């Protein structure tokens, strides 16, 4: 077999050159960062104009990870979409699973048993810890501090071992079902979570020793990327980024779901809304999450881990499928046509590690959503870049992007 090599000149070099000359004449330089660049934590692309070392214009370009999740959702049953939620914010898949499940449950009006809610709160908070551990570590690395990353990554690895034991997978967990969770917690798992939670504060303290009062780190982050309270609200910030700007909004407190009202925890609030504040908020949120986890474990309810009614939605019990006619038919209908969800529309937001992850579902009845919109926190948190970045130095870009802690899988959907 013979093969032919074709030389491809990607992009129009002549027009690019002309652009660069025009920019040079005006004393400015055009700089393109990404879509494949370590700073951008994925595939974000920034088109910037520089005047010397100062950024005068910044235009984010998205869509390099666009997979059409919303179109796919309109073409598959409610149950089949659960694995796709793993791939939104792939650093906290468990929290996404829970958000999606609760949204559909609101549409069907299912009441969940206490044990199921407790398991969900537990996995959501563990997901938050794991996401913030990575966020903090990588943020330190963006600012030039390698060591904290080693501590946080080691701890995160222990968490992933726990996730694996619970769900069977480290990353793509697909743990929730509509009306419950896939399986009960394994024997002794709670003790191992407790053990992890007892040891984590030591690692967090180490990270704090390395970063929080570190002169270089403070110099690089303090006063950089400041977002005022008004801007944070106007641009639709949510989650830790919003709270760093001094807005007291945490959906776990404001609009509790899955039994969050039963637990006692504090919501850290920032003052300046700069990169340093966003780092401090995440550190404190990890400690508060540990508080919630301890409360959940100390009073873990017994009972079922799925709603009795939900068998009509995800699957009848396996042994019944094999022996009883009615359950066999039911299972066949669920697999072929999907669960029968009543018509209506619902919007549900959960307080995820990155911000408020919302699902807006329009159902016309039947097993497939008519329209499913994913309101991704990373998408909304990035829209402020155009306004926030100009005026900063080029070297601040890494710190600003690191502090916003976004995930492109969720942003582009």
């Amino acid at each position: 077999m013979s093969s032919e090599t074709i030389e491809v000149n990607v992009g129009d070099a002549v027009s690019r050159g002309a652009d660069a000359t025009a920019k040079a004449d005006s004393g400015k330089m055009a700089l393109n960062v990404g879509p494949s660049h370590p700073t951008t934590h994925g595939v974000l692309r920034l088109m910037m104009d520089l005047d010397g070392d100062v950024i005068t214009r910044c235009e984010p370009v998205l869509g390099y990870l666009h997979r059409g999740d919303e179109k796919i959702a309109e073409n598959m049953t409610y149950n089949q979409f659960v694995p796709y939620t793993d791939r939104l914010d792939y650093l906290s898949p468990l929290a996404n699973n829970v958000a999606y499940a609760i949204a559909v449950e609101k549409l069907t009006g299912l009441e969940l048993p206490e044990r199921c809610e407790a398991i969900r709160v537990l996995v959501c908070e563990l997901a938050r810890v794991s996401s913030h551990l990575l966020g903090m570590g990588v943020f330190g690395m963006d600012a030039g501090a390698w060591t904290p990353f080693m501590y946080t990554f080691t701890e995160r690895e222990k968490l992933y071992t726990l996730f694996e034991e619970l769900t069977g997978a480290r990353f793509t967990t697909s743990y929730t079902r509509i009306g419950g969770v896939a399986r009960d917690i394994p024997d002794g798992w709670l003790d191992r979570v407790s053990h992890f939670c007892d040891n984590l504060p030591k690692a967090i303290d180490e990270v704090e020793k390395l970063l929080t009062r570190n002169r270089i780190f403070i110099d690089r982050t303090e006063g950089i990327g400041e977002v005022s309270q008004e801007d944070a609200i106007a641009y639709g910030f949510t989650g830790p980024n919003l709270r760093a700007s001094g807005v007291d909004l945490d959906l776990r407190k404001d609009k509790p779901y899955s039994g969050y009202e039963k637990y006692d925890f504090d919501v850290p609030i920032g003052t300046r809304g700069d990169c340093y504040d966003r780092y401090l908020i995440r550190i404190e949120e990890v400690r508060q999450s540990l508080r919630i986890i301890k409360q959940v474990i100390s009073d873990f309810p017994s009972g079922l881990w799925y709603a009795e009614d939900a068998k009509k939605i995800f699957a009848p019990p396996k042994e019944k499928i094999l022996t009883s006619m009615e359950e066999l038919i039911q299972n066949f209908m669920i697999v072929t046509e999907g669960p029968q969800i009543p018509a209506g529309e619902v919007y549900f937001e959960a307080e995820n590690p990155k911000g408020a992850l919302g699902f807006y579902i329009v159902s016309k009845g039947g097993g497939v959503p008519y329209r499913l919109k994913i309101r991704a926190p990373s998408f909304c948190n990035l829209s402020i870049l155009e306004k926030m970045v100009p005026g900063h130095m080029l070297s601040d870009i890494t710190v600003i992007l690191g502090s916003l802690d976004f995930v492109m899988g969720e942003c582009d959907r």
Partner: protein
Amino acid sequence: MIDQDFTDSILVKFSSVTKRHHDDCLTLDCDSISVKDVLLHLRDEETFDLLVDLTAIDHGEHADNRFSVVIHLYSRIHHDYLRVHSICENNEQPAFPSVSDLYPAANWHEREAFDMFGIRFNDHPNLKRILMWDDYPYYPLRKDFPLAGIETPLPADDVAEVTQASVDPAPMMGGPFVSGTGDNMSEAEPRAKDESWTEDTEKPVL
């Protein structure tokens, strides 16, 4: 939570607004001409200062009003969401007033709705595609756009010229969504690699 008085005050103040049946949060119907006035009132007088989501729905090619825009607001005082439904007048070239001057957060959401549904947001500061590339010719979330996609030229003309490559529809046969319409079930269904036999041809004896 939002009480009845609040709902009544909005309905009295704006004659174009009607309440629709809702399961989770207060849902208002509003025409596209007065939507900005209503939002301005909700933002400044009623503390709905967070626009959490803006999106569109395609009601199908044959619907009387094909596109509608859905806006979700959140109030930190009421601790509740509010949903505004609004119909885009023109089915062929749907247009809607941009609310990005009231809520800067709407800027990207509107670009996304334009990208996916082809709704033009009048007076939008920077209305261009956000997820698809700039000269992509279709609107993917419209109901008449096939799941597999449509063959489209590559975004980079010079590369396409040399390679003769294009963006192709996804191979759906045997994928997770569709079983194909082959004559034999075993050809239509996804299955393991052993394809040496079907209902019609005997499994070879080894």
